């Protein structure tokens, strides 16, 4: 069997609706290769990552294109041994302080790609291919390291003789994403950009999707063109309104700057800050709803961000 090709998902297309706690317990194992959806401040799988922190599932290899807030939480919680990514940052909100410290101290191993080459790795996995060609990376230090680690190979296009890079398929053991909606069969609808998520999901052995709203099976029967990802690839559906908070969900709510800033301020100085933040915001609570109720009593911030999103559409 070619590298990167999984055995059959079994049973195929039998997504089940369950709680975040049950889903994470069922599908995220210590030492897993964990794919993270979302990008920067949009549609990050915060509720699911809170649950991984709560269940203290460690030794993770985290993969994605842009890794942001969820990765930094996992690193701050001491759960990550390695990352493979195109970038780790929050744009205007700064760098990923915990990840950066851990990488600089060699506490976690890191493998750099460009966004296209990382997305191409997921496409290879999604298509059952051992590798994908890319014409990026040539001449760069990124490629030098990948070739040294035998994670990439430079070959000649058989027709033109021009150099082409081959990058290995990336096939997560389990991926976590947050989406606008799903039906009970796990058919997922994402509004707004899909970043790297469609191919990452299709490349994964298991996928947990949290959604703002679970609809009955068959809800998309009359508009199957709107389905972004078939339920065939989904293991568990978790209904979790505001599940990407404080990041945004297009057409639902804007990102909440002060909460993102708050985490960044806590994370900047040293490892104690983000640990205290997670203790207060994550592990102190039984679930994500309890976190939301504690940090946004009366839901005034959430209401405001939902209104702000409506004003932007």
């Amino acid at each position: 069997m070619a590298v990167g090709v999984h055995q059959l998902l079994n049973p195929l297309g039998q997504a089940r609706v369950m709680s975040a706690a049950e889903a994470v317990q069922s599908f995220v194992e210590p030492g897993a290769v964990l794919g993270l959806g979302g990008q920067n401040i949009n549609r990050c799988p915060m509720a699911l990552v809170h649950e991984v922190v709560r269940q203290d599932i460690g030794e993770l290899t985290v993969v994605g294109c842009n890794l942001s807030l969820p990765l930094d939480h996992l690193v701050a919680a001491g759960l990550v041994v390695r990352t493979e990514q195109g970038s780790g940052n929050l744009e205007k909100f700064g760098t990923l302080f915990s990840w950066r410290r851990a990488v600089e101290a060699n506490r976690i191993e890191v493998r750099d790609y460009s966004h296209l080459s990382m997305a191409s790795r997921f496409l290879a996995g999604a298509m059952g291919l051992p590798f994908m060609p890319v014409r990026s990376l040539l001449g760069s230090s990124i490629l030098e390291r990948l070739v040294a680690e035998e994670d990439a190979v430079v070959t000649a296009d058989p027709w033109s003789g021009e150099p082409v890079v081959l990058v290995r398929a990336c096939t997560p053991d389990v991926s976590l994403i947050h989406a606008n909606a799903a039906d009970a069969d796990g058919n997922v609808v994402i509004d707004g950009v899909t970043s790297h998520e469609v191919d990452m999901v299709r490349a994964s052995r298991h996928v947990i999707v949290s959604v703002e709203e679970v609809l009955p099976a068959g809800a998309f029967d009359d508009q199957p063109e709107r389905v972004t990802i078939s339920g065939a690839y989904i293991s568990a559906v978790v209904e979790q309104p505001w599940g990407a908070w404080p990041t945004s969900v297009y057409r639902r709510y804007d990102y909440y700057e002060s909460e993102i800033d708050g985490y960044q301020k806590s994370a900047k100085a040293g490892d104690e800050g983000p640990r205290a933040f997670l203790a207060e915001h994550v592990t102190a609570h039984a679930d994500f709803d309890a976190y939301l109720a504690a940090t946004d009593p009366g839901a005034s911030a959430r209401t405001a961000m939902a209104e702000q999103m409506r004003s932007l559409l």
Partner: protein
Amino acid sequence: MTVTEPTVGALPRELLVFEGARQIADGDCVIAGTGLPLLAGLVAQRTHAPSARLLIESGVIFPKVVPTPLSVVDPRIMHAPSKLGSLIESLGGFVQRGLVATGFLGGAQIDARANINSTWIERGTGRVRLPGSGGANDIASHCATIVVLTSHEKRRFPERCDYITSPGFLDGPGARRRAGLNPVRVKVVTDLCVMEGDDAEGELTISALMPGATVEEVLANTGFTPRVADHLGVVAVPSPEHLALLRDVLDPDSRYFPERLKNGNT
């Protein structure tokens, strides 16, 4: 700020935006991240390049941006586009496919040969970790023109980057070709000058100065010794109307210009 002295009020980083905008031709497809590059693209669309199209690496194709996105996945950048797609659509189907003429990049270091580092910096005995490539390597590999908007500090302009995240001219003339890359033209716009070059030259040359800056000042703040063009231009200052466009329409809350508030310019 008075109407009779409009250019006195143009902040150095605002001049970067306008000089960046001038690198965009009408009809170009331009890929830009948030911040000054996106503002440069929006200025171009509202002035000399109404048919220029903006591409966002997250998968937003040709949006009608509303103020002021802080991220490439900000709802303000997803507004009313041609299509909402994916990273691989933007970076594969447009950038690698060769459809994007101009790419804007940032970076912690840019060296004499226009190579860019946004991954690792050596500092004393340790190393500082930066965000990494994102789409930058892809953009530098495939766009015909790369524009960098940056503040001019000596540590940002080493002779040679500690790590090449995004290829400029690599080791010099012919090096991109040998690596399998198409040629590129690079323009670096700073608060002191404009430096530019292409594959044939293989290095950056000072081609213009910001108003009031001198070659000596540039050289003193640059870690390598760029060539100086025979005829040095001076970067044009924006008209009051264009400055108002940037300040009042494109970034009305000064999200990317905190110095405006300090300077009392708005």
